[in-house]
């Protein structure tokens, strides 16, 4: 983005001696508005609609399909409805903290969009500490959730908030440790750098580059789900126990902020996995037209991220909730040791093959394809056993 602004200034759009810093600030505002207001927030809303439709098909029913074509405007209607609700602040609640908590959680969701690598040129800020920035800012959620839990003056909210804080802080560790193998291979923390070190074909993705990275990818995905309070780790907002956990006392738009942050986090989870392990926006160089290439890469990036988002929704619909002590034991007894083993294993692998091992890439990719084929066979088995008719049309 900075190069784009520089080329605009050099093109003479601002006169002879433009004040560079002020122009940078202006363009930061414009581009941030485009990305945050135009992409992040609508995405959070659209994901709520998509999630309801996806769940509904899994549950043999139809999701929202009345408000607008195929129910697409449902999220806007929900947003408007929530804005019209009464703003209730409990009597003995700590009002400043109560009001600030949703904004902190929202901040933790919105700010990492600054380093989203949509394509080779479309990135708001190509920081050379991109991944570090990403993980550190998403940890702000803890503060927001704890504030919400405490300031609500409600014991159930407090329990939810404390559970959530413990969960997010614990799962930061396997998540961070699972990022290390990739950093070890590429030697850089910048998002674009990591993507450029991968190729477009699956055997060049980092996920298949060595078996330790494969396991690290899975652990990163599960830990990211846990950090985002998604099932199977959604104990803080466990609907059947604590009504809405730390967000019980919230109503209207404040409540929706928490959930927009959760839905929007899905994209961030997807982007993290895509950038680090699935090759990012890499697309075969079939043309030299810069704009066309950027568009193709944007489409590739979004397709991969949306697949991961869909997969998260699928997991949420299928799996039950893990209890808090089982969650903690899963993190500390299983994920942390395995992540350490991954890190050390990748270090040894990189020491032996500094430029990667293409054979390993092909073998792991083949194994992945085999696993997918086995999965599809089980799916077809269940489908045949139930003797229902095939109906693939998503619109009903």
């Amino acid at each position, binding site marked *: 983005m900075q190069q784009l602004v520089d080329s605009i200034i050099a093109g003479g759009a601002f006169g002879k001696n433009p004040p560079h810093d002020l122009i940078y600030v202006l363009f930061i505002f414009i581009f941030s508005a485009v990305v945050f207001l135009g992409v992040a927030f609508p995405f959070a809303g659209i994901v709520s609609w998509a999630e309801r439709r996806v769940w509904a*098909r899994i549950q043999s029913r139809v999701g929202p399909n009345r408000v607008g074509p195929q129910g697409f405007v449902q999220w806007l209607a929900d947003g408007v409805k929530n804005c019209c609700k009464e703003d209730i602040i409990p009597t003995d609640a700590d009002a400043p903290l109560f009001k600030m908590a949703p904004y902190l959680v929202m901040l933790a969701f919105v700010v990492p969009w600054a380093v989203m690598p949509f394509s080779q040129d479309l990135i708001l800020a190509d920081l050379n500490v991109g991944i570090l920035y990403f993980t550190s800012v998403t940890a702000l959620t803890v503060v927001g959730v704890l504030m919400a839990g405490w300031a609500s003056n409600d014991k159930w909210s407090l329990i939810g908030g404390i559970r959530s804080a413990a969960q997010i802080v614990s799962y930061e560790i396997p998540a961070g440790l699972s990022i290390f193998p990739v950093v070890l291979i590429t030697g850089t923390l910048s998002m674009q750098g990591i993507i450029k070190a991968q190729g477009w074909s699956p055997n060049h993705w980092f996920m298949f580059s060595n078996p330790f990275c494969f396991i690290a990818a899975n652990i990163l995905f599960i830990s990211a789900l846990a950090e985002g309070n998604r099932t199977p780790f959604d104990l803080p907002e466990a609907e059947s126990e604590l009504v809405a956990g730390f967000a019980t006392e919230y109503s209207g738009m404040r409540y929706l902020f928490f959930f927009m942050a959760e839905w929007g986090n899905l994209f961030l989870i997807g982007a993290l996995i895509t950038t680090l392990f699935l090759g990012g926006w890499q697309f075969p160089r079939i043309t030299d037209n810069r704009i066309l290439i950027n568009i193709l890469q944007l489409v590739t990036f979004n397709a991969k991220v949306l697949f991961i988002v869909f997969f998260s929704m699928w997991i949420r619909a299928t799996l039950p909730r893990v209890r808090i002590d089982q969650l903690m034991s899963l993190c500390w007894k299983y994920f942390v040791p395995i992540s350490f083993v991954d890190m050390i294993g990748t270090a040894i692998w990189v020491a032996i093959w500094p430029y990667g091992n293409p054979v390993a890439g092909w073998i792991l990719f083949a194994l992945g394809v085999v696993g997918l084929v086995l*999965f599809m066979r089980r*799916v077809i088995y269940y489908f045949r056993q139930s003797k229902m008719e095939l*109906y693939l049309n998503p619109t009903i």
Partner: protein
Amino acid sequence: MGAASEYFNNIKEAVLSIFEGMAVTGSHFMRKPYTVQYPDRTETRVQDTLPFRYRGILEVDLEICTGCLACERACPIDCIVITAEKDQKTKVMTLLQFDIDIIKCMYCGLCSEPCPTGSIHHTTEFEGADYSTESMIRRFVKDPVLAYKPSKGPETNPQILPILNRGLNYLSEYQVSGEPKPGSKPEPAPPATTPET
């Protein structure tokens, strides 16, 4: 080694069972949803698809009501209020009031059983919601009418005959104590290919 094998066994079981669960829900993607999109996206009106025995909102066919008050006695919740006068000289029964309060009604069907002609019956109508409780009292008698006097032989009045037939048809669904329903033989057993568990 027992602890280590248990550790890896846990991981293996977790991965495999989650895999199976995802396969089950994955197969559900390809199935048709079971929802009936009432009220506007059904092929026929839902009320027309309901079975004949459906116990919806009550209705009275005053043309065939004999004024015997059996339904008022049978109702366990006293939602039927009937006022009928028998003129002592001419022995003619006049119905002055026949109110059914559909809020109180619990749709049990105990009133339709003792009716001799089937004039009080449940319909397949279930959409009775309204904004006031007064509108929920269905007053079936607008002006005083004569009660129906069942004729000795088959009914001859062509206007009453179809209504009487429908009422008797409805009644025939119920069981008469002690007598088998005509044709109550069960259908022959299904062919032997059905697994006999």
